[in-house]
């Protein structure tokens, strides 16, 4: 066979071979990186159920301390009074008629329709697909509109230069911050620090959509409420016993 290879055949063959290699190569790349690269989806909605009947005052203090320890806030020395950050706080509610006192932990309620996201001029205030509301501090300009919009007073502004932050939780002067539902732990399959700090069933964390999850099953059975349910924000954090 003495077929002479002309230019057309050469190009045809070369292209076929190159395309083959590219396909294999891209296949390999795709399979290699697909393992850890799955973005979160809206098939889940993370939520929390706080049962105030099961929580003592010291339980709530433990929750606050665990949050401070995990996320590294609370040791600001130059901030005064209201300037101090508080991602989660202890609230005392008193019924004036009967004098009944309820203690409850209050943090970002991770709304489905968050007012803080609506008012943010730079898109820094954002909600992840799985329902966790966060501040993108790369984009935050510190205008604090979100702090005014939040009905739960859940957000804080960092007033001073910080150093020695936690590796997983960057924080800095001039940006707004709030409870992240310990997003760095949730992404690893762990529970938020505050939920873990309470050993009783006082705080249940889980996927609200998953019919087999403890939080979903408990919410089906017992009476629970959203704080300021009249605002129709559909919060991810629910309370029972108040």
């Amino acid at each position, binding site marked *: 066979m003495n077929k002479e290879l002309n230019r057309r055949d050469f190009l045809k063959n070369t292209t076929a071979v190159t395309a083959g290699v590219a396909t294999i190569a891209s296949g390999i790349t795709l399979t290699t990186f697909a393992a*850890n*690269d*799955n*973005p*979160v989806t809206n098939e889940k909605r993370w939520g929390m159920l706080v049962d105030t009947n099961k929580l003592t005052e010291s339980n709530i203090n433990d929750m606050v301390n665990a949050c401070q320890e995990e996320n590294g806030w609370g040791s600001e020395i130059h901030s005064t009074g209201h300037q101090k950050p508080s991602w989660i706080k202890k609230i005392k509610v008193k019924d004036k008629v009967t004098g009944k006192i309820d203690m409850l932990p209050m943090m970002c309620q991770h709304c489905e329709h968050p007012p803080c996201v609506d008012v943010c001029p730079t898109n820094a205030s*954002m909600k*992840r*697909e*799985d329902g966790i509301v*966060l501040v*993108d*501090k*790369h984009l935050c300009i510190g205008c604090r509109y979100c702090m005014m919009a939040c009905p739960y007073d859940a957000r804080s502004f960092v007033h001073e*230069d*910080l*150093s*020695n*932050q*936690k*590796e997983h939780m*960057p*924080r*800095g*002067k001039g*940006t707004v911050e709030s409870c992240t539902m310990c*997003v*760095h732990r949730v*992404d*690893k399959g762990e529970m938020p620090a505050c939920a873990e700090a309470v050993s009783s069933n006082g705080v249940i964390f889980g996927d609200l959509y998953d019919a087999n999850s403890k939080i979903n099953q408990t919410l089906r059975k017992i009476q629970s409420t959203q704080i300021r349910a009249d605002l129709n924000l559909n919060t991810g954090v629910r309370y029972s016993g108040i």
Partner: protein
Amino acid sequence: MKHLLVIFLTLSLNTVLAHDDEHANLGDRATELKDEGKSKDIHPSLDEIRKMHPEFLLHRRDQTLRQGVRTQRDSLKGCVDCHSSTKNDEYVPINAPDQFCSTCHQKVGISLDCFSCHRTTPKEGL
């Protein structure tokens, strides 16, 4: 005259090459990896990482924060872990004047603002 020219050229070539390959302060872990010959596993192309690292980091930050994709590759944490150096058994902040990040950024006049929020040393404690 010819000899002088050869010496001059050799010297200048050496300076260029030396400048190209050496970094004033590579960091403890990175130096170890380089000595073990493993640096190519992390940065296959030096030119690429030198030129493209801002883009890699920018892309990674949005993926991590907004989509929850948390891989070690191209994370700022990863940079700090390897390129930090120790002095008297304590980590020196990576944004200090003679440390890995600042040496180049100062030279090219880039003021970087990663570390007003991000931790400047690897993990907690040593």
